[in-house]
């Protein structure tokens, strides 16, 4: 329940940002970069799915749940595509100013998910560790955390570069 809320909140924030930027638009270079980000995201997901499929053939590997594989696919793809776009200045439109604010929101969403994921994986709530639930929270938390850190680092490097000029 809590996981679903976080996921819905994530898409609500990203959707709101995209909606607010709708009129600003992206330039041609940014569109090309985002398409290429989609390529890397797709290749990541395909490789991951190929690995899941090969694992499922061997009986010695533990059986993976659908929730686990779909969560891993979604977040790994989003993470690769997002980080590539952020690093190449194509995640936000040219007119966006408050990208650090977005990073802070991502960070706020990422930290509790990371903590819940670790607690679930170690079974600290009491009871046996829940691998599927723990990994779902963890990968979502890691994704938000990495996106936030990359935005902040990119902004920091850009401001340093501008300072040198």
């Amino acid at each position: 329940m809590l996981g679903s809320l976080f996921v819905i909140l994530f898409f609500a924030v990203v959707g709101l940002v995209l909606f607010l930027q709708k009129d600003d638009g992206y330039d041609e270079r940014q569109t090309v970069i985002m398409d290429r980000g989609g390529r890397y995201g797709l290749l990541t997901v395909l490789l991951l799915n190929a690995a899941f499929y090969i694992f499922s053939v061997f009986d010695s590997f533990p059986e993976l749940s659908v929730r686990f594989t779909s969560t891993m696919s979604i977040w790994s793809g989003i993470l690769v595509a997002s980080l590539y776009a952020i690093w190449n200045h194509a995640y936000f439109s040219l007119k966006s100013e408050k990208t650090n604010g977005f990073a802070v929101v991502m960070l706020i969403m990422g930290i509790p998910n990371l903590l819940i994921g670790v607690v679930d994986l170690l079974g600290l709530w009491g009871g046996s560790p829940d691998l599927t639930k723990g990994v779902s929270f963890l990968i979502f938390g890691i994704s938000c955390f990495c996106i936030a850190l990359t935005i902040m680092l990119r902004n920091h490097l850009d401001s340093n570069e501008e300072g040198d000029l």
Partner: protein
Amino acid sequence: MFLATVVVFVVALSFGFLILMNKVEGERDERQTQVVDRAYKYAFVTIMFLNAVVYFWEKVGNIQLLSSEDLAALSIWLGTLVFAPYTIWQHAYFPVKVKKSSSMGWLFAGLGLLELLPVTWDYFESSKVDQQDIYLVFLGILLLITGSTILLRNYLDRKEDEGR
């Protein structure tokens, strides 16, 4: 089962041949690269959507539509199915210098039929299909759609050239 293995091997060989041919004939031009990247993005979004639907269906509805093995195979299949027809339709599947794309179209369509026929035969003989047969059907559909799209695109291009 032996036939299925042979067919899958032939399909893998033809894909290898296609990749090799693309390397030999040269790289795609700038427009084609952009179209290919866009196709990757569409395929990516499609797979994300599929995974999200399966996830929520299971979580909210408590209904398991697919096993993790089937979801992995279906994701790869659907991604390729979105990518191939889109790039073919936008003249970006083959590099500019490739001339004999129709022969590739016939090859794909033929292999697609070859995948579908044994399963259809099995079904009429025993009235049941196992999981391997379903994978063959999906592979057959993919090849048939890809081959048909190449042939249709070439046919329309020829018509357009004649109209000039």
